């Protein structure tokens, strides 16, 4: 089993130095997601301004994969219009659920392509998706609230 394909240097870098970590104000929605099988947890806040992801802040506890993927998520999606961010989200989920058969699109996913190897480890896919599912949930809530 190839550990290097799972633990790409980019993943370990984000794990050791997570970007945009910590919970910040202001925010429109906050969610708390857990991985019930292993106990990994993330509290994640989304701040939207005029249909753009202005901030993603989070407090996460978990393995290198879940920590790094949340860091990459924030790095990738902050500053993007919500529609575009949702497209990136879909691309990432598709990659993760592709059992290693999906060719990652570096133009869309940037550092996220490092997680291509994770898709070959079924037990770790949920780790990689924890922060991403939390973001989608929080963003959906924030959008609904914004529409009143």
């Amino acid at each position, binding site marked *: 089993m190839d*550990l290097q394909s799972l633990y790409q240097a980019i993943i370990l870098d984000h794990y050791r130095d997570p970007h945009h970590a910590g919970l910040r104000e202001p925010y429109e929605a906050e969610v708390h997601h857990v991985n019930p099988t292993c*106990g*990994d947890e993330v509290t994640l806040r989304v701040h939207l301004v005029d249909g753009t992801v202005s901030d993603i802040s989070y407090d996460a506890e978990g*393995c290198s994969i879940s920590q790094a993927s949340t860091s990459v998520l924030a790095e990738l999606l902050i500053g993007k219009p919500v529609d575009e961010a949702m497209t990136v989200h879909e691309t990432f989920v598709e990659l993760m659920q592709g059992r290693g058969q999906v060719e990652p699109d570096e133009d869309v996913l940037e550092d996220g392509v490092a997680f291509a190897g994770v898709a070959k480890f079924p037990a*770790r896919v949920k780790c990689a998706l924890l922060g991403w599912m939390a973001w989608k949930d929080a963003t959906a809530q924030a959008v609904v609230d914004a529409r009143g």
Partner: protein
Amino acid sequence: MTGVSLQAPAARVDIDIEKIRADFPILDRVMAGGHPLVYLDSANTSQKPRQVIDAMTTHYEQFNANVGRAVHQLGDASTAAYERARVKVADFIGAADPAEVIFTKNASEALNLVANTLAWGSGDYAVRAGDQVVITEMEHHSNIVPWQLLTERTGATLRWFGITDEGRLDLSQIDSLINERTKVVSVVWVSNMLGTVNPVAEIARRAHEVGALVVVDASQAVPQLPVDVASLGADLVAFTGHKMVGPTGIGALWGRTEVLNALPPFLGGGSMIETVAMAGSTWAPLPAKFEAGTPPIAEAIGLGAAVDYLSAIGMDRVAAHEQAITAYALERLGDIDGLTILGPSEPVDRGGAISFEIAGVHPHDVSQVLDSLGVAVRAGHHCAKPAHRRFGVQSSTRASFYVYTTTADVDALVDGLDQAKRFFQVG
């Protein structure tokens, strides 16, 4: 290597591990990367010897029929084999009467059977508003959630023993915690996370002083220790087959006849009735009263073969080996910088599950590196989230042993942990 030789613990363990290992086909597996399997996840589920696999195959190939109803040769043979398995299990745990052994699908179902029928019952054992149920903070979720459901539904109160820093039960408040309002005390005998062996007899004595029912989760105890339910002091004991070299899908609830007779049925259906009329039904005597529907027949027969297997080795030897290998592992793990053991660090009143943390490396990542070397451990909360929270951690890595575990397996674990630390540049 033959046997386990160690400096200190117990007496010399006269157990032929190579002979035992040869009975477990899966231990010959070569994992990805050409690494031989090092299976250290037996507290999760144990591996199965050829004898158990063969017993189940033979049943399906030669004797398969439903039990307790078919008037043909196969039905007779199947029924006899199923009931013989019950007798074997009863003998194995020292039950006075095989009818006191109820087959369930696992320990969780056994515990849920008890917690539900206590809510539904009308006699002395019924749990009502204002009553108290006492558990412990080191329970597996299967001995927490059923009692939460019971107390929420009845208006009773759930209370629990805490855990000391060493991972033992804090019994300092036992006399106030277990009081005249206590109706049920349900405790784990051997912790699946901390490894702690709890003083069940002492707790049972206090519980019986106040007239409370004593339930024991023996899921990790029956596989590891010689068990005699008659002298344990418990009223009801739950355990599961798959952790004691038996198949999945079969567990057991032992209960004192008087208690089981006083509880109402759990699941209704075929086999559990005496007679059924549209206006109402009456129940079969024990054990059928609690075994509605077609039971896991081949699984029960497999469990019978598992009990035969363990008995042939001798549970005193199984226990001595478990203690010796645990002592060896505690010593080797204790030498690793940055490694913290959650639970007793001395091999005294301690079972063969060792949960630990490595500073700077998450348990998932530890187990991933170990898996890449063929070493199978468990990472996560091991269905004991409250016990993890007690120690301020979210998850841990757990190595657990059984009758086929060698010191070489433990050495492979220690080498793997060293690699995990290097991979993540820790220490």
